[in-house]
């Protein structure tokens, strides 16, 4: 009787089918006649990598910013870890935010701090009981995992774009997030570095069992990292499927992403 439903349909890395993120009917506009999101519906299962594609300015960044309430949505429900984040007070919201890592489109490293301080700044505030040695160990470990252990005493201005991306990634990883939101992790990087970052994203998913949303224009990255892909168009999710499915879509507009 137990065997009646054999555990077949577990796609890729998906642990189980509990959604970690659910967005229902998300609306957001800037001014009266500038609607950006017009009813986005989205679910991301636990342990899944979801890739969001869409033209520049279609509202991809806004969508994930609504998810952590950096941007207040006009309308719509957003559930993260089964909690409706729009109803939360400040301290509860911060408790959720501490479990989410957000990689910004332009890395957003703290200019006035060294790499080491960039990493210790969030860590010290979240784990106050850590000793200096433990903080240092955590910093070294996470820097090694992004391959930049020797940049520890540099200032952000001394780093290249790709290095900044990786330090930005390290800064979010150091808090061991359960959800990762990547905003264009590979944009502006060469093919080789892009692939390294994509592989890093995959490694993070495997190692920490994180749920991720990856916004990208880089199809190689989408192919490598995405368990599932959605395309944002005119403020709604226009298409959804795996890379292979969308590549063969009957919709020419959808296919145009894959050329």
């Amino acid at each position, binding site marked *: 009787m137990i065997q009646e439903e054999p555990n077949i349909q577990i796609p890729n890395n998906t642990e189980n089918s509990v959604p970690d993120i659910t967005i229902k009917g998300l609306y957001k506009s800037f001014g009266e006649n500038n609607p950006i999101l017009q009813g986005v519906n989205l679910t991301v299962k636990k342990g899944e990598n979801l890739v969001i594609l869409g033209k520049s300015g279609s509202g991809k960044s806004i969508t994930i*910013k609504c998810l952590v309430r*950096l941007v207040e949505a006009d309308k719509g429900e957003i559930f993260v870890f089964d909690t409706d984040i729009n109803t939360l007070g400040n301290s509860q919201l911060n408790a959720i*935010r*501490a479990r989410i890592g957000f990689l910004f489109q*332009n890395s957003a*490293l703290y*200019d006035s701090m060294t790499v080491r301080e960039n990493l210790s700044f*969030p860590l010290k*505030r*979240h784990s106050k009981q850590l000793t200096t040695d433990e903080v240092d160990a955590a910093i070294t470990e996470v820097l090694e995992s992004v391959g930049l252990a020797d940049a520890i005493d540099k200032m952000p201005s001394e780093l290249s774009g790709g290095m900044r991306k990786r330090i930005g990634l390290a800064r979010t990883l150091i808090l061991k997030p359960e959800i990762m939101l990547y905003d264009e992790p590979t944009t502006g990087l060469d093919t080789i570095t892009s692939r390294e970052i994509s592989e890093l994203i995959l490694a993070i998913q495997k190692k920490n069992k994180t749920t991720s949303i990856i916004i990208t224009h880089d199809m190689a990255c989408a192919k490598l990292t995405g368990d599932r892909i959605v395309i944002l168009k005119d403020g709604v999710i226009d298409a959804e499927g795996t890379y292979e499915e969308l590549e063969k879509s009957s919709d020419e507009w959808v296919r145009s992403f894959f050329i």
Partner: protein
Amino acid sequence: MVIYLKNIFTDAGNVTRFTARFFKEIIRPPFEIKEFIRQCYTIGYKSLPLVGITGFIMGLVMTIQTRPTLAQFGAESWLPGMVALSLIREITPVITALICAGKIASGIGAELGSMKVTEQIDAMEVSAINPYKYLVVTRILATTLMVPLLVIFADGIGILGGYIGINIHSDVNLYRYFSQVLASLAFLDIVPPTIKTFFFGFFIGLIGCYKGFNAANGTESVGKAANSAVVAASLAIFIIDMLAVQITDLFF
């Protein structure tokens, strides 16, 4: 016109809310002591040379300019007292505050503005760090505390400048000069102007932070934030000065 008025009221509302948040956050732990001390260092210590030089020049110039008038009445012996009075009551606080508006308010406006534009403030917020507490409260506190200290420092240097100014034409020894200065100063000459400088400092920090924190997106808004911080802070200094003088006049 209607839009213009509406903007003024929205702005006033936003500033009020920003200020109210300051008083709310300042009493709530955790306190960012380390960042506060760092800000005191950058805001206070780093401004010492600039404030010192202008203070010295004000003292020197005031003495040289006042001498002929007093000489006409044969009242040259009043020179130290008069210069000290005008320096301490009015000139040093206002000039120092204006210099601080130029250096500190614009610095804070540009720094926070660029942090806002490059999403560093957002990054703090999503990692559950309160950027208002870390960036704004510490800076406003530091300016509120440091500007009065800078003014006192400039007062001292200015009076020293006055001494050198007097000795260009005559020969007064230092001890006599200082005893004349001290004899001319009363409670009313020192305390109200000092209280005033706390307000100068508070508003320099507040306006710099407000402009920076609310910078729009895009790099050109960083320059705008810095620029409008200086303009608004300078204006605020004159308005506070006017109010302070009226209030002192009314009560004493």
